[in-house]
């Protein structure tokens, strides 16, 4: 146990070091990187991916995968947008949007645990269903133009800090406590480490797995609130490829796709690495084609570190 904990620390240190080095390189290469407005931009731009990646971290630690998060972002955003457009009061509209995400997550979880289907297949299916539902609900058109009270979820400030950043920090704090200080959190690791042993020790694996996917759906809906407010528009085509960005942030942050290990702090740093990288490449004027190559290389590199470290443990 202590050995693996030491490994987790070393791995996390590596990720943080990666972020520091990356920032150092960018600072040396462009005077525009290390400025307060730019760093606030990076943090805001990262917030949506970072929030979606919270759910992805829960799911991946439990040994699963959730490909439907991007579509859930779109569907929750669209439900929220339609509610606001039809003059539903803000708290109820938010409840509808978040409820949509939660319901999608519960459906994923129920199909995975009681349907005994592989999570890859279930969430591949719901990815398509939720996207289709979002397109049907809007006839493919974006819903736009919301009042300033709603838009403040993206444009507002709390104690001088932009609200998406505050939301991200609060979400990570809550999720971290849930993952490390509650029995539910311990079961997330246990299910990912050895599902059969967890079941035999009397834990309702089905119930907890369903809850894990529900968490993923719910946080995706939170990301949808911020995205919709930021764009001032609920787009049925929003959130495409978010699942891959979230998986990348989680994996760069040291969560093992095999399940059983990972931390939210790592995921947050992973999301920041991706955000800083995209921002830096923009500042340097690197073409979008080369950006994709660099980001791909970073993902592979991060997993390579993981694998090498593991090989040396045994």
């Amino acid at each position, binding site marked *: 146990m202590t050995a693996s904990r030491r490994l987790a620390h070393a791995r996390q240190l590596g990720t943080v070091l990666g972020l520091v080095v990356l920032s150092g*390189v960018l600072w040396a290469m462009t005077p*525009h990187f290390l400025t307060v407005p730019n760093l606030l931009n990076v943090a805001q731009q990262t917030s949506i991916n970072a929030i979606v990646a919270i759910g992805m971290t829960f799911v991946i630690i439990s040994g699963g995968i959730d490909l439907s998060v991007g579509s859930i972002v779109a569907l929750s955003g669209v439900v929220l947008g339609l509610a606001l457009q039809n003059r539903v009061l803000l708290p109820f509209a938010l409840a509808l949007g978040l409820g949509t995400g939660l319901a999608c997550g519960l459906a994923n979880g129920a199909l995975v645990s009681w349907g005994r289907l592989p999570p890859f297949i279930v969430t591949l299916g719901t990815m398509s269903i939720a996207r289709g539902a979002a397109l049907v609900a809007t006839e493919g058109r974006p819903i736009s*133009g919301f009042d300033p009270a709603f838009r403040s979820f993206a444009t507002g400030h709390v104690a001088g800090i932009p609200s998406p950043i505050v939301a991200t920090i609060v979400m990570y704090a809550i999720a971290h406590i849930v993952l490390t200080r509650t029995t539910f959190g311990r079961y997330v690791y246990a299910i990912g480490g050895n599902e059969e042993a967890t079941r035999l020790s009397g834990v309702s694996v089905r119930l907890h797995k369903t809850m894990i996917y529900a968490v993923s759906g719910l946080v995706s809906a939170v990301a949808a609130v911020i995205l919709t407010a930021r764009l001032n528009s609920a787009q049925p085509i929003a959130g495409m490829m978010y699942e891959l960005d979230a998986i990348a942030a989680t994996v760069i942050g040291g969560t093992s796709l095999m399940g059983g290990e990972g931390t939210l702090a790592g995921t947050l740093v992973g999301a920041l690495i991706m955000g800083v990288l995209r921002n830096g490449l*923009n*500042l340097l004027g690197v073409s979008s084609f080369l950006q994709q190559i*660099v980001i791909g290389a970073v993902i592979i590199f991060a997993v390579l570190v993981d694998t090498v470290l593991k090989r040396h443990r045994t």
Partner: protein
Amino acid sequence: MRKISVSLVVLFVVLLAVSFPACNRAAPGTNKPKVALVLKTLNHPFFVDMRRGAQEAADRLGVQLDVQAAEREIDVEKQMQIVENMIQTGIGALAITPSGSREIISALVKARDAKVPIIVVDTRLDPKAAADAGVHAETFVGSDNYEGGKLAGGYLVKATNGKARVAILEGIPGHETGDSRLRGFREAVSSAPAITIVASQPANWERDQGFNVFQNMLQAHPDIDAVFAASDLMALGAIEAIAAAGKTGKIRVVGFDALDDAKKAIAAGTMEASVAQFPSEMGKIAVESAVKAMHGEKLPPDIVVNLAMVTKDSLSRP
């Protein structure tokens, strides 16, 4: 264990150090004024042409041009991020082809606050949303897509003597560009009562979807005489579907954009016509306008780039 992670980090640094200077096109030490051109995407020939025209103008005028685009045409969130990031690099002017007429406005508010003049290219901003947010574009450079749609419709009415069963391939629903083209086209063909629109479906600007959607349309309506695609990529997809059905030459295909591939198809006779836009001209005028705006010159609200109908006849003319 620490040693390994440290050595891997060192490797990471080396990799970055090697890769970044190679990518960094902005030569340090140049104090040339910088114009940013933010496109919808760079994986479409239309925008590649636009960039070429813009680059030529920038070289001629002695300004530094920084071109960025999202990976996918519909990714307006990524486009917003690019705009926010570029404002930080101290650009003198911003030329942009908005991926979303309303959505992009939040990013343009930041450009306004940074006192960066905005040139809108190809796709208009939503006038009401822009006015509400207090965003003012110095000028709009582009073709009138509504007129282009009318041109295509008028051509088809004439070519078919006002009698045809027509299918339409639409772009992504809710896009100003595609909607205007379709409005123009419908307006033009409505003058011919014997022209019926039998099917109208979105193929999302893409070639493979143009193929699939038109193949399905042919299944449902085997007697289609003509198809209007709101972009050439979708038209080229439809041409393949027509070939697969063994109906090449029996269905008139009219596209939009006059891409090189479309011109080849028109010369080969598999396609009938396409509305030509001049994206490199748009890019050129966008940069010229950006430079004028940086110098505080007043620009006209609209700079219209002409359209032309490309047919086999027009291609054979010198």
